[in-house]
């Protein structure tokens, strides 16, 4: 099965990290990504720019309505994601638990709806 692992964390806390800590965290992500590429779990993954850069689009009566900001304001913000291949949810949970962001934020595990 494929799962999307959504990484939520508090952007303000992250922005407040000193340079060395931020670098260490970024290195941890690199190591993790390399590991899950090697084990064949990695299907994709990216880091996202802060929510301040987000725009939300809706189409109403045929007109495109664009607004500034994310779809929902939350205490923790979506900051990145991995798409992984896992045998079952237990394997997906184990992969999610190893993401560095799981220690200060939360990882949402969502199964991919396979195309019929």
């Amino acid at each position: 099965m494929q799962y999307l692992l959504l990484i939520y964390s508090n952007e303000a806390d992250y922005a407040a990290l000193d340079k060395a800590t931020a670098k260490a965290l970024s290195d941890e992500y690199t190591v993790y990504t390399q590991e899950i590429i090697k084990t064949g779990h990695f299907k994709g993954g990216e880091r996202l720019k802060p929510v301040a850069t987000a725009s939300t689009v809706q189409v109403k009566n045929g007109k495109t309505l664009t607004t500034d900001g994310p779809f929902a304001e939350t205490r923790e913000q979506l900051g990145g994601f991995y798409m992984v291949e896992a045998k079952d949810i237990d394997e997906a949970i184990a992969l999610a638990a190893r993401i560095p962001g799981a220690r200060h934020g939360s990882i949402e595990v969502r199964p991919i709806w396979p195309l019929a």
Partner: protein
Amino acid sequence: MAASKSAPSGPWPEGRAAAEEVYRREAGRVLATLIRLLGDFDLAEEARQEAFAAALEQWPKTGIPENPRAWLVNVGRNKAVDHIRRQATFRDKLPELKATLESSEEETSDDAAFGDDRLRLIFTCCHPALSMEAQVALTLRVICNLSTEAVARAFLLAEDTMAQRLTRAKRKIHDAGIPYETPEPPLLDERIEGVLAVLYLVFTEGYAATSGAELISRELCREAIRLARLLDLLLPERAPIKGLLALMLLHDARREARVTQAGDVVLLEDQDRDLWDRASITEGLALVDEALRMPGRVNAYAVQAAIAALHVQAANPEATDWRQIVGLYEVLLRLQPTPVVQLNHAAAVSMVDGPAKALQLVDSLAARGEFREYHLLHAARGRLLQQLGRREEARLAYQAALAGTRLAPERRLLTRRLQELDRKD
């Protein structure tokens, strides 16, 4: 399906009752194995239903097969395959499923395989990716085989609501890829804790509900104990399992004595000890011993069970070893520093060092303001103030407690306390 027959070849009038009896005994195991073979809860339940119908039809004529469990699984599996064959949407999955079904033919008669399937079912129903409510509902419906209506009644919900909850839970198992597997160590111990939390919740739900649905609450306690016994059998030598089983047995042993015919609460010190169930106590005491003697970190259920053990071992309330109970509560406080444990600790302290010392503990607990079930705190304060002869303060505390609970037996107990205060006026 070559089962040898053990009954007369002619008509057998008791056959139906005998078949029903076998079914009641085997229903859980048969379902667990069918779920593994068919990979779907609903399909497995249907298959079991049909297998039972076939048994009721056939067994009274032919006698009970030598291995009725394997018979039911085989018939259920074949019925399910027929079903799938009829459904066009499943047709492309059929070769794969048939292969699984055929390769599993011989192992289904094996006792160990059935045990493994029941464990798988327990760990799937109590998977942490499901909400606690869903875990409890699935456990009672699927593992304990209670009707949806009974499960709904136990949690004071409409049957529709419970049916929806079960459907959603089964859908999540399927869609989110919750495995039908017993987890491997090191995950196993963590997941056992989760299963035990579900069992304990089922038990306390049954134990605390003193009003209304008396029968169903009894059933909840019985099922929680039965499942803990099964876990202890399938995963032997684990202190948390033995500890929880002991704890539940030692509490359940007092069931008959803790409520009067009229439904009033009888406090431990006022209970008729002859009404306590000796068999449960003996079993519980042996399990506490085993749990406490096991190597590794002491387990909170085992400590709670040890406290319950000291209570039931006293021939009368005065003979209770309160000093040792206080010591055990101190151990428990380190493992589980919850407000309820702190309150119980204070109650034990009052028996050793007197109500004044205990009142200090309760007041500091109240001052920290982290208590959610305030009526318990007020009730405990009231009792201590009453013992200290501070009647007016006791009255205020009891009144505050009354305002905080809707449980009728608790309300009657508090009203009784208020009357005691009046009598001494």
